């Protein structure tokens, strides 16, 4: 054996570690890695362990922790970042896990998105409640947890809202801001760039592009980050908003409590396409919009349509195609009340006659090339709500 090791040490060590990692993966498949999605193509027997490490589940992680993490993610469609940080204390996660198990319909796809949303941010929903001052039991009452989490956010009067139009009605009913027009169709004006002086942009990598190449970075604020999703936008612990003080960075929720804005532009939804359904997505989006309305009662909120992808991707991608994008733009349209919340379809100017993102303006079929962010910006400047 010793001679064998001297002659081919690397080979032997790889063989031994392969058996070891394979064993860990096979053993964990029924427990820690139960919810790791199966590979689409071929994957070696040790793949679950490596996927687990990528998700923050290590071979030495406790079974409960790993399981809770995955169930939170699969249930909620939350980004791992949120769950990873949550795993700092396994106890709270275990509590979540219990909640998840007991919430009915956690296995149905449509139920997942919504229920999960409540349960993952369960401990944070608590926080939500206390900030807005209408505290609800939160994680205290087990069975009601998930529904309460959302209802709590959307309804000021504590009423649960189940229908899609519910959230916006609630808000518009509660707050009566006077607009220059209260008719159905909004009156958009063309304005100069100083319109953005008190504007805030929230979004994913495409909004990061607008920040870098829109030439408005000195005027507007940007709370944008690559792969940001609506499910986590308010409480994502990643450094989205940087502060000057010793805190370093704060969440969007905290930032919106501290600074007031005149206009808030949101474009989110492409990264979410692999998670949940158009309904659950719309619901989560509505909850975020309502929370923003609570924190920013005077701001005009612009919901921008999810930008289409270009022709080639549209044809070849089973998930990220324009049919699916339009399915998700539909509930976003309905969130607009045309008084405080407006829907802007950026695809009007960014797409060619086939309805795909103009393929001359993009390399990767998803993001605009730098020079073409101006078109997006001009569109926003030509679709401004001016309050008297």
């Amino acid at each position: 054996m010793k001679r064998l090791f001297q002659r081919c040490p690397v080979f032997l060590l790889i063989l031994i570690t392969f058996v070891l990692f394979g064993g860990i993966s096979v053993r964990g498949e029924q427990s820690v890695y139960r919810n790791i999605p199966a590979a689409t193509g071929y994957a070696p027997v040790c793949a679950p362990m490596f996927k687990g490490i990528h998700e923050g589940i290590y071979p030495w992680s406790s079974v409960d922790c790993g399981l809770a993490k995955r169930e939170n993610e699969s249930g909620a469609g939350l980004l791992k970042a949120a769950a990873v940080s949550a795993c700092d204390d396994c106890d709270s996660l275990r509590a979540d896990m219990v909640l998840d198990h007991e919430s009915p319909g956690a296995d149905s796809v449509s139920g997942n998105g919504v229920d999960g949303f409540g349960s993952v941010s369960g401990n944070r929903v608590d926080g939500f409640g206390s900030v807005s001052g209408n505290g609800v039991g939160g994680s205290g009452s087990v069975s009601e947890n998930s529904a309460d989490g959302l209802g709590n956010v959307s309804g000021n009067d504590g009423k649960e809202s189940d229908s899609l139009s519910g959230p916006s009605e609630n808000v518009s009913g509660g707050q009566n801001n006077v607009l220059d027009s209260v008719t159905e169709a909004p009156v958009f004006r063309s304005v100069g760039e100083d319109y953005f002086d008190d504007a805030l942009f929230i979004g994913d990598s495409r909004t990061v592009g607008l920040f870098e190449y829109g030439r408005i970075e000195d005027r507007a604020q940007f709370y944008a980050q690559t792969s940001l999703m609506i499910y986590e936008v308010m409480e994502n612990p990643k450094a989205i908003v940087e502060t000057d003080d010793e805190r370093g960075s704060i969440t969007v929720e905290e930032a919106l409590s501290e600074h007031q804005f005149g206009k808030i532009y949101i474009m989110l939804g492409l990264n979410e396409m692999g998670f949940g359904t158009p309904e659950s997505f719309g619901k989560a989006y509505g909850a975020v919009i309502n929370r923003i309305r609570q924190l920013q009662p005077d701001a005009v909120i612009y919901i921008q349509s999810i930008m289409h992808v270009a022709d080639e991707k549209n044809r070849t991608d089973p998930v990220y195609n324009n049919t699916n994008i339009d399915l998700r733009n539909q509930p976003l349209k309905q969130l607009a009340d045309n008084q405080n919340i407006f829907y802007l379809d950026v695809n009007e100017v960014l797409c060619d006659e086939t309805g795909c993102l103009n393929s001359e303006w993009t390399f990767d079929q998803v993001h605009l090339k730098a020079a073409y962010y101006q078109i997006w910006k001009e569109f926003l400047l030509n679709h401004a709500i001016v309050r008297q």
Partner: protein
Amino acid sequence: MIDRNDVIAVFSLPNQNVLVFHSLEFIFRILPICLLLCALMPGTGFSGILLLGSLLLYWMAEPSLIWLLLAVLFVNYMLAWWIGCCERKGLRRFFLALSVLCDFGLLFGFKCAAFPFWKENGAMPLGISFYIFRAVSYVADVYTGQSSPELSPFKLAVYLYMFPVMASGPITRYGQISVQLEKNMSLSNLEKGLRLFITGLASKVLIADRIGILWHEIQVIGFESISTPLAWMGAFAYTLMLYFDFSGYSLMAVGVGRMLGLTLPENFHYPYAARSFTQFWRRWHITLGAWFRDYVYIPLGGSRKGRARTCLNLLAVWLFTGIWHGNGWNYLLWGLLLWLLLTAEKLFLSRWLEKHRILSRLYMLILVPVTWIVFAITDLKELAVYFTRLFPIFGVAQGTVNGGDYIKYGKMFWLLFLFGWLFSQPWMERWYQRTKQNLLWTVSLLVVFWVCIYYLVNTASNPFLYFSF
């Protein structure tokens, strides 16, 4: 452990991954199975099982074109045989010309998409540029008498189609392979080959694919909107990506060959340590350069027929090299640019370069990325735009430039640039050769291997850059 889905995954055709060395399929299925079968086979059946396996893999990767391999084999086998039998010089010449015509006709036919049965959106059939070159070199070697014609078509097929060199070289010679067809597998060869394979895998997965992200990002931004520092960073990123991609691939091929007991030729020898383009092209894709030298440059007269003729011969070689690499006009331009540089070096520059150590390094540092940019950007208009960004004196930016872009990407990629530079210099290997028994290397290679697997499992692996050639 082997479930139905695995079987389907491996046998879903076409599945090019079976010949992509840095795919999980290859590392965890194909390679172990091939090694095991070859090891279990008694000595006499070794080349047979190698051939059978290679053809099977090719059929899995490119199911519609397996007949083409047999046709190329048949034509070249017959013609080489006739050349060997024939006494009359004119007839021998005719057979040689016929085989060259058939082989290159096929290659150019696919390049110009002239065949109605082949409509794979402009991509070349897997490995064709490489096996055609092996075939031509075999027939030419028979013609010049360096090799005798192979009487066994099976042995010739092993040389042409063995899977370690099938997809992307190195371009072996018949003389190198024909003497190695006896089984020579051993544990020490396995270990050596595995070490080479891991090094190549790491080059590809940990450096080339990572630094390739910057080049991708720059394309996403659009060339018209990058700052001049970022344009240079992009050129360096592409330079490093191409090197680690292709040298890594070649190293994996040599490693696989070694595990099977075959010694395959080295394809890269630290080209980025060269101090002139003349040296550079003796160290970059060595087997291709040698092929052009032996079968184009020297038959045309090489450098023996006077200065003007030498320059013309070089021009032929470099135009041919350009065309071989791809269909676009930029490849011709790239060939011309290299011809200019190499001719200048041949005429006067190299004497000056040899004297100035630092200036020659600076010359390479600037010009190598520039030549690679011409190679990289197939659209001539875009290429012109990139040059205005590299050299702002040629024109102003037409897009929206974010002047601080290079700081953002510099922060993200500086470590990769550092590693890329370090590993493209020969010091690491010298150190390894002195201390390779050290346990530290063993452990490092083990860790590096699993880190590569970590990346492969968690990212969709990119198809290798050179496959469409």
